[in-house]
């Protein structure tokens, strides 16, 4: 614990405590704006931020190490607990990597179901982000409106894979079970609902003058900086970097689908916000193309009971709701991976926070953290 008996820090030489007259405050590990156990040590000069120092590790569960003792079928389930808002997509990446190693051909039906699930997850994740970000900047009502629509997706997920948060559905070779008989009807119902509500979002928040002032020119990240910090996903696309894995390195059936990669060039919080809002509409577009065209066939390829990846290194990547998620497996030919490494989007996106926040006000920090869409277990793993 930091005991703050001397409120103004007088001339400490420690690099993390700044100069005389600076106010050092600990945002987190328990703080309403961090949405988890992120710990930011912020050096302030009045209301102006001089430095932001993220301290990580509060929710480190050593998932990578844990995966080394689990078989190729088992380790996928652990990855749902990393970025819990896009657990399907995490599982997808792991399944893809194992399939690459084993050279399993995934049936077309499974591919379509996987893409549908990915896009539903993406919408659900962005809905939650929209509500949580609005809450960060002081508007409480959007949270409940976003959750109303998200609930419909959760019900679809519950029907199909039995869980509402840490879903496990993707397995090497396809999906675990066939879709629920009501699946198509419910997804169509959701799309109708969502299309009528997405304009309401704009009315409630996007068009608000206070909101625009809070977002515009806040936390500007230039294109060069976005690349050098390794930002991916909506954060990089808000800065004008074209980096959608679904477009650049298509997996499954993404190359046959008609959708746009959303890019905004301003690089500020408003641009990142708009990218995500428009991405939700693109996800709906993808779902609309697929929902009536789910091909007949197997939902899972026939695989061996015990999976053994050949000796070598395998990498696969997917586009999660937060950016590029990579799985790197080093195999020694055993039933468990020799070494596994996850490239999580949240970690790289967080690293840009200090650069973005310097010189802005304390109130801007929450807006930036909101639009970075940080999921703490994804950062710490």
């Amino acid at each position, binding site marked *: 614990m930091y005991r703050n008996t001397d409120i103004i820090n007088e001339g400490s030489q420690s690099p993390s405590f700044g100069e005389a007259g600076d106010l050092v405050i600990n945002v987190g590990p328990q703080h309403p704006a961090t949405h988890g156990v992120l710990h930011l040590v912020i050096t302030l000069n009045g209301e102006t931020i001089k430095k932001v120092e993220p301290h990580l590790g509060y929710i480190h569960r050593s998932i990578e190490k844990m995966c080394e003792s689990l078989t190729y079928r088992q380790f996928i389930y652990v990855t749902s607990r990393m970025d819990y808002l896009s657990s399907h997509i995490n599982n997808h990446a792991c399944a893809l990597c194992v399939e690459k190693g084993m050279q399993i051909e995934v049936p077309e039906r499974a591919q379509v179901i996987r893409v549908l699930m990915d896009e539903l997850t993406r919408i659900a994740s962005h809905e939650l982000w929209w509500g949580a970000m609005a809450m960060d*900047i*002081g*508007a409480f*009502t959007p949270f*409940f409106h976003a959750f109303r629509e998200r609930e419909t997706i959760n019900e679809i997920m519950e029907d199909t894979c039995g869980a509402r948060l840490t879903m496990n559905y993707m397995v090497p070779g396809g999906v675990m079970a066939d879709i629920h008989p009501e699946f198509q009807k419910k997804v169509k119902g959701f799309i109708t609902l969502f299309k009528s509500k997405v304009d309401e979002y704009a009315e409630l928040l996007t068009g608000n003058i206070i909101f625009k*002032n*809070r977002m515009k020119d806040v936390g500007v990240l230039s294109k060069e900086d976005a690349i050098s910090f390794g930002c991916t996903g909506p954060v990089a696309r808000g800065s004008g970097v074209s980096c959608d894995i679904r477009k650049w390195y298509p997996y499954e059936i993404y190359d046959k689908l008609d959708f746009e990669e959303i890019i905004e060039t301003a690089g500020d919080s408003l641009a990142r916000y708009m990218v995500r809002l428009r991405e939700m509409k693109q996800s709906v577009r993808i779902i609309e193309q697929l929902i009536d065209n789910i091909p007949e066939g197997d939902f899972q390829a026939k695989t061996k009971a015990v999976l053994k990846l050949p000796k070598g290194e395998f990498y696969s990547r997917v586009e999660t709701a937060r950016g590029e998620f990579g799985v790197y497996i080093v195999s020694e030919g055993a039933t468990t991976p020799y070494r596994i490494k996850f490239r999580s989007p949240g970690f790289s996106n967080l690293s840009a926070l200090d650069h973005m926040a310097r010189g802005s*006000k304390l*109130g801007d920090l929450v807006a930036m953290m909101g639009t970075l869409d940080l999921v703490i277990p994804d950062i710490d793993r």
Partner: protein
Amino acid sequence: MWSLNKISDNIHHWLNQQFSPTWALIFEMVIAGICVISLFAMLGLILVLMERKVSAWMQIRLGPNRVGPKGIFQSLADTVKLLVKEGMTPDGADKLLFNLAPFIAMIVAMLLMAPIAFAKDFQLWDLNIGVLYVSAVSSIMVISILMAGWASNNKYSLMGAMRSGAQIVSYELSAGLSILTIVVLTGSLKISDIINAQADGWWIFKGHIPVIIAFVIFIIAVTAETNRAPFDLAEAESELTAGFHTEYSGMKFALFFLAEYVNVFIVCAIGATLFLGGWMPLHIGHWQAFNHVMDYVPSSIWFFGKTFFLIFLIMWFRWTFPRLRIDQLLNLEWKYLLPISMFNILLATAVAILGWHF
């Protein structure tokens, strides 16, 4: 017609018959004090419940619905919970200031009850500088917030208090100037004079554009002055956890909470008195029959109806708007509201001198 002033007159006569005038006065003061304290507590309970129900309605929820029918005893249960909680004083805090601050907030809110006319001829203290008294006393509120923030020995509290200080001092100017608009038109600071001047029409209707501008500015300024969203920077949950009352718990926190809600009530009551005619019924020109029907509604209903309408407006702001940033907040006041108010008061003066109002 049943009215509050008849009850008070009856009590006054009865006390004067039974006791000497001195003792009667003392008893009357005690009764008035008890009434104010119970009104204070009642308002706290009602407004907290109202806020929760209004927010639930806006957020597609049900709100409290477990304690009592439709959850009407929820705030009572919360009060009991807060009463029995331990009121902690943090280590290293300035104990005197820390424990004094919530009481100052409460005292300020109570003092402000004095000049408010709750119904026809039903007012605790109709002093001749009524409106000035309200602006002067409400400024003391900032002292309690600064004290709480400084004494807590917490950086979040300190920042919240500093924000609040800057905010309240700035927005008082606009609030004061918009109050002055009505004073210019009425020619009196006395609350009863201001209400009586609106017998043939509320100022918002007969005061032309300057009064409408003043009303809008007044609502914005008092929302900021009572630290309500979208100007709740002093508390700013996502930035400063709970701002100046981060370290308060139990009844000490409850006093701040109560003072906030009573302050909302008071500023809305002042707004209703100045712009919407206080307890005056709605009268339209020469519609004699309509005016008579309106007169049958008790004056207290008119007063509380208008006040709660304004309170609802302020709650509506809170649950729909995002929060401003501190520099934007001060820009809004010093670059927009204050120049507009200054120009507006000139306009109002011209209207008053030339007799352009109805």
